[in-house]
């Protein structure tokens, strides 16, 4: 009983901490946007040329599948970071001094994550209700059919994401930016695993298919197909969840899911996996041990031993006393007064050094390999393959842009310097551009040799666009997560698959839109400028 009370208190505090932040409002805004997009017909569930009549069953299923498929990606980035927050606020050290077990804490964190994600599901439920009423194709409300998919699809999916977020935070190699990138590929892998369980087994879904998909799509696909076959025996088994406009569709009436024991068990199994993930996290959880926290924070070579520090303090006291006797004031070099020179490029160099600092040797080897690869590979391969990888390689470097000062609490030092706005922000941006030009520079050489001016322009715009996106995301979010998540998705969809209008690399003629990305670059730099201006008292 007492444990339940403690658990409740932990989850409540965690939940309240998050919902009282501006970012939660943004989260809810995003959820509403997804709900609106679905309502407006920009996210469409189709079976070949058919869609269901917007009755409770269809609307509920649509919202359920949209929530579990899309919010499972975004939701992860939203909830990840609760253990880090306890670490930064030092609340963790207070909790660590209580009798609470590690598994209790990680499960509580998982529940806190789940509470936030469940509130997003709640917003989608309201959106579903409004959608059915406003669409007006069938206004008869069947609450079970409307909300059932949200409860049985979306909530278990959100629970799984909540558990994974805790696990990610406790694994040293996944808790940072690498983990944010890795999650995207894990998420696409999980989606593929679910879809592959269904595709090719249309007539005979095995029980394990339901356990392999965390979104609930197999149940939905099999039952919708079965219903449509009864209406149109010639139906070709197509099933798609599409973002964007699609043509008009034929309509059929679908009356909802019929749940059997295996399917319900499969959904509950994902809640069980979530619990397992949270419990597994306890194995790796450092319990806010300062030594392990520091080691995981990257300062592995740091000597944190207080005993050594004390020795230095005492030595310092003697040293200063001696210096005072000698009169140290004269030993400092005078700084010339008068109008300071801009020394802008010295600052660019300093920003570049800061950005590159701490990179391991293999990072430089990889960057050099990609540069050489761009030069040596056939030009077509360089455009479509090597450059794409070369502009993913420095992702974590760019992700620090615009938020480093907030993250490490150096704002008061940096922003009190002369011309903080006019010098430091542009210098940081230029450093980011130089990194993009450095890793992808090999292709520029090839394009120059080939005399491909359009390609060169597109490449240069791309090299400016990426750090501009990073800077804007960093300044406005105050962290690296937004860029890490957004850029990874953008890279995957736009750059890797060369989707026109999204391909920022600018070197593939069919998908290059340098004018669009030049405009976006200007807007993003402007946004970063405005965001920073709001933080610096005198811009």
């Amino acid at each position, binding site marked *: 009983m007492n444990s339940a009370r403690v658990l409740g208190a932990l989850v409540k505090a965690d939940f309240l901490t998050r919902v009282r932040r501006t970012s939660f409002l943004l989260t809810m805004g995003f959820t509403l946007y997804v709900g609106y997009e679905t309502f407006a017909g920009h996210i469409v569930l189709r079976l070949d040329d058919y869609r269901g009549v917007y009755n409770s069953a269809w609307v509920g299923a649509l919202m359920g599948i949209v929530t579990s498929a899309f919010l499972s990606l975004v939701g992860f980035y939203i909830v990840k970071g609760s253990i880090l927050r306890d670490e930064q606020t030092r609340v963790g050290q207070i909790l660590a001094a209580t009798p609470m077990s590690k598994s209790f804490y990680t499960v509580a964190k998982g529940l806190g994550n789940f509470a936030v994600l469940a509130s997003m599901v709640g917003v989608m439920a309201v959106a579903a209700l409004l959608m059915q009423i406003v669409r007006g194709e069938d206004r008869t409300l069947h609450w079970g059919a409307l909300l059932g998919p949200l409860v049985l699809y979306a909530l278990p999916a959100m629970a799984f994401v909540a558990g994974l977020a805790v696990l990610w935070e406790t694994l040293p190699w996944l808790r940072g930016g690498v983990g944010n990138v890795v999650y995207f590929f894990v998420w696409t892998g999980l989606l593929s695993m679910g879809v592959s369980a269904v595709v090719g087994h249309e007539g005979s879904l095995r029980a394990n298919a339901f356990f392999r998909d965390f979104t609930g799509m197999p149940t939905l696909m099999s039952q919708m197909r079965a219903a449509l076959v009864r209406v149109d025996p010639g139906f070709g088994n197509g099933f798609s969840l599409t973002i964007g406009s699609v043509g008009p569709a034929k309509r059929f009436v679908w009356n909802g899911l019929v749940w059997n024991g295996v399917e319900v068990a499969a959904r509950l199994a994902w809640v069980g996996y979530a619990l397992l993930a949270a419990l597994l996290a306890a194995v790796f959880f450092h319990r806010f041990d300062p030594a392990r926290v520091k080691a995981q924070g990257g300062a592995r070579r740091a000597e*944190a031993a207080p005993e050594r520090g004390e020795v230095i*303090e005492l030595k310092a006291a003697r040293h200063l006393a001696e210096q005072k006797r000698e009169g140290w004031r004269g030993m400092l070099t005078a700084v010339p007064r008068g109008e300071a020179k801009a020394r802008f490029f010295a600052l660019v160099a300093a920003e570049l050094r*800061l950005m590159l600092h701490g990179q391991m040797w293999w990072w430089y080897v990889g960057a050099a390999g990609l540069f050489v690869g761009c030069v040596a590979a056939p030009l077509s391969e360089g455009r479509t393959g090597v450059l794409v990888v070369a502009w993913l390689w420095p992702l974590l470097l760019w992700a620090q842009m615009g938020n480093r000062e907030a993250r490490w609490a150096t704002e*008061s030092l940096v*922003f009190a310097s*002369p*011309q903080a706005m006019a010098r430091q922000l542009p210098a940081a941006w230029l450093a980011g551009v130089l990194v993009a030009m450095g890793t992808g520079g090999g292709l520029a050489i090839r394009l120059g040799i080939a005399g491909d001016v359009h390609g060169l322009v597109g490449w240069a715009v791309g090299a400016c666009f990426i750090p501009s996106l990073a800077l804007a995301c960093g300044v406005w979010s105050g962290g690296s997560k937004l860029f890490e998540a957004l850029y990874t998705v953008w890279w995957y969809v736009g750059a890797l698959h060369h989707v026109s209008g999204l391909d920022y690399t600018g070197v593939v003629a069919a998908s290059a839109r340098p004018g669009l990305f030049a405009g976006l670059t200007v807007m993003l730099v402007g946004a970063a400028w405005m965001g920073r201006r709001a933080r610096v008292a005198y811009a």
Partner: protein
Amino acid sequence: MKLSIENVGKCYRGGLWALRQFTLELKPGVLGLLGPNGAGKTTLMSILATITRASEGRVLWGGVDVASQPNALRRVLGYLPQDFGVYPNLNAQEFLEYLAAVKGLEAKIAQKRIDQLLDLVNLQDVRKRPLGGFSGGMKQRVGIAQALLNDPELLIVDEPTAGLDPEERVRFRNLLAELSGERIVILSTHIVSDVEATATDIALIAGGHLVAHAAPEELLRRVDGKVWEWVVPSADLNGVKEAYRVSSTARRSDGVHVRVLTGEAPRGAQPVAPTLEDAYLDALSAHRAGRSARAVPA
């Protein structure tokens, strides 16, 4: 070299005034800005360091309004904030090099000064060690070094001794005393002993208002003859606390030695020489009493 603070006020979101009608004029020397927690010291420091804007009033540096030309002040400003961070993967040398570039220092001069400052704050031996492993005192010394990088004419240090052990505190006080000379040093603290040894001027701040601004001697003169000490049995201590403004108490074998601030001598009490702490308490009490009186309708 003159810093003028004219009727400065700062209102935060929600209508909370952290600072109100604050006026002060500073010339070279060490100003001890003394006040209880939440008095508005850090807000004032942030305004002077151009980190935040004043909601009303103005700050003039050499007669120039800081709001219109903040860089005129920033070029000669050294600022050690109460809470500041470092980049944990950089070492002390690299961190100072970065901040020198941000401050626009010429590279050769910056290198020399960094070398000398690391010597001054005795971090030469650990200059290559990542800052993430530094103790609080060592990090504070990095803070002092960065504040001195540009040879500032105005040095603002906000609660520099918070979290330091007594020996470190003494060392910082000495360092600040040495730093004064031709510069204006503003030392903000709630610890009276921090300013006792170093300040040439003291400004008392409470509730966002300037309570007093005077030389330490003048503040002491104000409580001359108002500080009394005597010994009372432990059982009587509560009664004494109710009747007088108690400055300090100390339990000894003969009873409790009580030090009080009052205009009239308590029975059996002896007059004692006032300390700055007595002056501080007296000024704060008078300020609070004045505010209470204003709050009660006639």
